[in-house]
């Protein structure tokens, strides 16, 4: 049972690496969705006795939200915004993957230093920290608004896994509140991306640092 949980952890880290090298937006969205689904399965495997009905219901909600609704919203935002199909990173892909590996080394060191309760599944803390870092990397080194939403979701996945490391079953109210927040955030960001692209003809955040009125005045019609 724990070997399967460890395999899932490895799979989550591999998804982090894949996110660091993928150049296609739709693949990125699917990878984030896959990571959410896999992370949602984790609590069912991590508890030593069989899964309680409450955990089961909760896992189903998470998988539905992260695996179906978020990708659908993001795909819709991508299509509506008419963005180019590629990610357009600010650093090269090999540099991204090396950053990810470095993050994993750092987080495995950090995971061994943090005074956390002993977990039954190895690697759950380093994996969660590495996932959070990958999310930060997606936010900072990719130039599109939609990849920043994706980075935000990856961070949420990481925090969720980190929560699993502390308690096998989290208080349901807390988790539901976080999920609701994330849902609203993705919803709002989807609308925001749509509006940004309608106003500015692109969703490249580097271009958003200047006011549009100023540019029009500078360069004329």
């Amino acid at each position, binding site marked *: 049972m724990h070997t399967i949980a460890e*395999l899932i952890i*490895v799979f989550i880290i591999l998804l982090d*690496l894949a996110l660091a090298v993928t150049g296609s937006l739709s693949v990125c969205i699917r990878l984030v969705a896959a990571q959410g689904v896999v992370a949602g399965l984790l609590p069912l495997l991590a508890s030593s006795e069989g899964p309680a009905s409450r955990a089961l219901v909760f896992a189903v909600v998470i998988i539905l939200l992260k695996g179906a609704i978020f990708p659908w919203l993001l795909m819709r935002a991508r299509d509506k915004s008419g963005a180019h199909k590629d990610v357009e990173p600010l650093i090269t892909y090999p540099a991204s*993957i090396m950053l990810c*590996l470095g993050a*994993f080394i750092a987080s*495995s060191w950090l995971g061994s230093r943090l005074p956390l309760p002993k977990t039954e599944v*190895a690697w759950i803390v380093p994996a969660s920290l590495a996932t959070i870092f990958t999310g930060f990397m997606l936010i900072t080194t990719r130039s599109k608004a939609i990849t920043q939403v994706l980075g935000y979701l990856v961070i949420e996945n990481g925090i969720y896994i980190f929560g699993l490391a502390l308690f096998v079953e989290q208080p349901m109210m807390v988790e539901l509140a976080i999920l609701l927040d994330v849902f609203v955030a993705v919803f709002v960001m989807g609308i925001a991306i749509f509006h940004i692209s309608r106003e500015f003809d692109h969703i490249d955040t580097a271009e958003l640092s200047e006011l549009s009125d100023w540019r029009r005045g500078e360069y004329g019609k």
Partner: protein
Amino acid sequence: MEIIKPFIQFLAVMFLSPLLLGVINRVKALFAGRRGQPLCQLYWDLYKLFMKTPVYSRTTTWVFKGGPVIAVSAVVAALAVLPFAGRQSFLAFEGDFIFLIYLLGLARFFTVLAALDTGSAFEGMGASREMQFAVFAEPAFFLGLAALSRVTGQTSLAGMFGTLTSATWAAAAPVLILLTASFFMVLLAENSRVPADDPNTHLELTMIHEVMVLDHSGPELAYILYGASLKLWLFGALIACMVLPRGGSWAADTAVFLLFMVAVAAAVGVVESVMARLRMIKVPYMLITAFAFSALALIFQMGR
């Protein structure tokens, strides 16, 4: 008795390795709907080439003639270290996995020197690419073997694969799966198979390994072809030793091992049939992925 079995194993490797390329070609032909070459085509090719008189360009020196011989001898020596079906070979010692990696490096170095010795710009380009990709492939391979050494607590290849049982798999499955994937990618790149290089395109500007051997003819070309098949066997055997369960008799283990080698060759053939060759600038990405897999496996094992 313990001398005879390793010797038989070694002879079997020497004799059977050209068969793997035949299997790959047959699988590719099957996918393309052709009948394909006979399984033993490489044996006939080697026989034909050994019968021929080599032709040398006036610009070449002894390096050109010596390159293929040294390369094939290095690979033969590497195979003398490599365990067969998890059983010890006759030249096993502590730390021999470093020896193995250096022998492969030596083989590569002399192949490249022989290519440069022809004075052809085309071969120089191939040599440059070969070295460029080796920069990515070798760390992946080295880190992978280091991780394996860490998993089993042994420093000789025979010891590593000897102590690797199904119990080890149950305990460290994620690490071993990562290593298997990494080794398979290194196998594809090091043997110039499809995602990294196309062994069939002799005159394309995109090729890597085949361009270096264009000027070789006769017995030297035979050495190169034979060395390539031995190298394919070497990487296939590493994967086979890692994946296969052991514990039966010598004969049963050997039979399963040989079947698995054919399966590895078939897998390479399937990959070649279903995948297109990667663009030149994408090849390092594949090898960096292999490196990342090996590095992850090592970090995993270190913190366990």
